[in-house]
């Protein structure tokens, strides 16, 4: 790749000067400066919405800057398209992969390569390169059969085949087990040693401290600081990212648990989607006053499990779900709500809430059938009880600190954190006996996350049974009394949170608890 002996004399590999990107009236990036040097892993830190993705998309030619300039090896360039960026020597591994599940590894890679590189025995080159960098891949394997970690390897190998000088990685560990992440770090260290530069986007501070030599911190589209992550502590980095010190969640000891409120026994469910995950022999119980967390890498059947428990997905093929002592087979989501259950799905926009509807309408969305107040929201031909809705909206806004410009705005106008507080608050306001939350604080700022986690703990200490599905281990250890791990549609037995280490969870996330049925099934 590059000759590392003379890198000191060379200008920065990539330099960004005064770059801005405006969407409408909103500055996603506001005169940012950044310089990336060869042979280093450079971290780009910031909360969701800080402008990280916008910045790298401009470096990769996927977006054009509103103003400012980009210098590549000292020369000013305008990167017109991703193809142009790849030509220059910039490779990017996206957070969401763009792979065809029905094609093989080498077919997927071949599709994305320029014709020059497609010649010769591509499969052999893939096998060699992936082996060389400790990213084992079978070129003939179908993408649909691969784990998320393996899919990411495809993307990385695809970039490496083009011998990039700069590799951009957008939150690469968000979908990996701790062990897979370690393997990735080893690969990155090796690349850097060879003189390649890596721009590493993350909001996980520990791993930034672990592998990065430089760090640039963004907040609200502005450059906040350039620091050496080796000197800073995770706490000081977090403070720079968030802008204030993060509120700690206080956790009373559990006052002991009571009756089983949610139980699933021997449940099987074939996925309704072509490449969805089949659920196999799921067993779990959540008692009153207990928080059970299901850990696991996203896309291992968590979404399917959520929709079977909520009743959005029609009945389980085999086995049964019991809510508050009543068997729920065949009941829809509203009937389950009426039994005292409440649900918060993973996606805020389009699933938990409708973006173009007002907040009051979004309250109606999940509460039109079971409101748990004396009078129903739905008065038939007389119409919807708007007055009660705006009252509820006010209360939820105050209780859960939903910040908004007016009392009743559209869901789209709230920030991610505020909308999540609203969606969680809408369900919690009912004081449900059972609460099922999928990724409670995904993509939410630290302040909102703390508020939501505190609310979850408080609700459980009042005697509700809570099931959390999360891929954030920090969150799980902060909240859970008990932990189970999901991988490839199978759920491990439940362990007490105190008895498990991160490494043990990591092994289970990779499938160590899976039973033989999976092998024969696959």
């Amino acid at each position, binding site marked *: 790749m590059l000759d590392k002996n003379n890198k000191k004399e060379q200008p920065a590999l990539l330099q960004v000067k005064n770059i801005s990107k405006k969407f409408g009236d909103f500055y996603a990036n506001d005169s940012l400066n950044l310089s990336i040097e060869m042979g280093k892993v450079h971290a780009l830190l910031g909360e969701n919405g800080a402008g990280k993705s916008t910045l790298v998309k401009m470096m990769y030619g996927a977006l054009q800057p509103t103003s400012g300039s980009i210098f590549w090896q000292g020369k000013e360039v305008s990167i017109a398209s991703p193809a142009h960026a790849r030509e220059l020597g910039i490779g990017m591994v996206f957070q969401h992969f763009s792979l065809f599940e029905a094609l093989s590894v080498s077919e997927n890679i071949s599709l994305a390569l320029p014709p020059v590189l497609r010649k010769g025995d591509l499969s052999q080159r893939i096998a060699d390169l992936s082996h060389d960098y400790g990213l084992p891949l079978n070129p003939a394997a179908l993408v649909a059969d691969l784990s998320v970690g393996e899919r990411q390897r495809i993307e990385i190998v695809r970039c490496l085949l083009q011998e990039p000088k700069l590799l951009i990685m957008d939150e690469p560990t968000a979908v990996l087990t701790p062990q897979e992440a370690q393997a990735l770090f080893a690969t990155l260290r090796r690349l850097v040693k060879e003189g390649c530069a890596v721009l590493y986007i993350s909001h996980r501070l520990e791993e930034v401290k672990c592998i990065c030599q430089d760090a640039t911190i963004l907040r609200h589209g502005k450059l906040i600081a350039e620091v050496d992550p080796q000197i800073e502590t995770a706490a000081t980095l977090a403070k720079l990212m968030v802008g204030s010190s993060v509120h700690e969640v206080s956790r009373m000891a559990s006052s002991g648990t009571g009756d089983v409120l949610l139980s699933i026994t021997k449940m099987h469910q074939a996925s309704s989607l072509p490449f969805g995950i089949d659920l196999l022999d799921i067993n779990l119980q959540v008692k009153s006053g207990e928080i059970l967390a299901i850990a696991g890498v996203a896309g291992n059947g968590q979404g399917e499990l959520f929709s079977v428990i909520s009743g959005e997905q029609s009945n389980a093929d085999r086995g049964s779900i019991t809510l508050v002592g009543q068997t729920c087979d065949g009941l829809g989501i509203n009937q389950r709500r009426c039994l005292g259950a409440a649900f918060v799905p993973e996606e805020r926009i389009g699933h938990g809430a409708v973006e173009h509807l007002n907040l009051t309408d979004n309250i109606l*969305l999940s509460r039109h059938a079971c409101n748990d107040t004396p009078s129903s929201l739905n008065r038939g031909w007389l119409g919807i009880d708007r007055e009660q809705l705006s009252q509820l909206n006010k209360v939820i806004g105050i209780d859960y600190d939903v910040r908004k410009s007016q009392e009743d705005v559209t869901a789209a106008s709230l920030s991610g954190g505020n909308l999540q507080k609203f969606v969680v608050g809408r369900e919690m306001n009912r004081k449900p006996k059972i609460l099922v939350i999928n990724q409670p604080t995904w993509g939410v700022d630290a302040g909102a996350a703390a508020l939501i986690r505190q609310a979850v703990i408080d609700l459980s200490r009042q005697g509700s049974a809570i099931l959390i599905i999360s891929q954030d281990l920090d969150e799980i250890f902060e909240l859970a009394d008990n932990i189970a791990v999901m991988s490839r549609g199978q759920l491990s037995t439940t362990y007490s949170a105190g008895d498990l280490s991160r490494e043990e969870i990591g092994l289970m996330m990779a499938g160590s608890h899976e039973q033989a049925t999976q092998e024969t099934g696959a």
Partner: protein
Amino acid sequence: MQLLLEKRSQASSLMNLFSPLLAILLTVVMGGFMFAIMGKPPLSALYIYFIDPLTSWWSIEEVLVKAGPLILIGTGLAVCFKANVWNIGAEGQLTAGALMGAIIPVLWGEWQSPLGLVVMLVLGAFGGALFGLIPAWLKTRFGVNEILTSLMLVYIAQLLLDWVVRGPWKDPDGYNFPKSVSFEGWHLLPTWGDGRMHFGLVVALAAALILFWVMRRTLKGFEINVVGSAPRAGAFAGFSQTKMVWFCFAVSGGLAGLAGLIEVAGPIGQLQPHISPNYGFTAIIVAFLGRLNPLGVIVAGLLLAVSYIGGEGVQIELGISDKTTQVFQGMLLFFILMCDTLILYRLKWISGNPIQHGKRSAS
């Protein structure tokens, strides 16, 4: 120089109102061009087309008679489209409703009672709904695209009507003309004025107002809106997509069937091979022009009714083919869909390449 479509940060409610007006304006301008190309004076042709129909009581009455079925079908389709269910076959449901309702006058001609008329109206709506449920069933059971099936069923219904009036239901005293017996007495709708204005317009306005209330105030309207715009959120709310398809086809098919019955029991007074100047298709334009809002549909229905009468007007006075009507209606739909882009996007002139533009503003 470059013309760019730039996505707005949120949908423009102003453009939502102005888009149909802009579309009407563009249609009028292009219509003027069309008249000019055909060698007719554009301004006076446009006057004959759009203004003349509103200058005499006779033609205003005729506009109202034509607006009735358009409003009735258009409101049903507005509900349908709002729910993201694409019933393109209202013309077929109209025909099916007319056939079903005509059972009473054709087979029980001697049953003369107000109740008979009520039964006819009910049968008309029932026939349209039943015919509409065929694509609903095909969609929910086999996943067949409802746009195709509902459209193809139009031709089945029309051929059925054609066969019936030439075969089993042909008027024995009709000199072998393809038509049924003429409806009489309580098999015809009450009329007033010189006998053209009939009860149908009242039914249409009532349907529009009721559906307006349902859409605006009730949970059903909320359900239609949510299922149509955010299906996953609809499932989360416990609303069934399948039931929504059935509901939409039942309502829009029922209203189209009612419109068909009203046509044969009103202005036409019998069954014949052609009972509608494509009301079922024109109502699609009505629904979109009315912003899928039943009150808007009333206004749009009146406008499109003018286009029918105007088409007849230019045919009589300037000797232009009555296909002009279809051209105007087609242009109108085309321009509405085009202008609706401006609700989510704005137009931007950009000089040169956007990157150079950026550099210039930075220096």
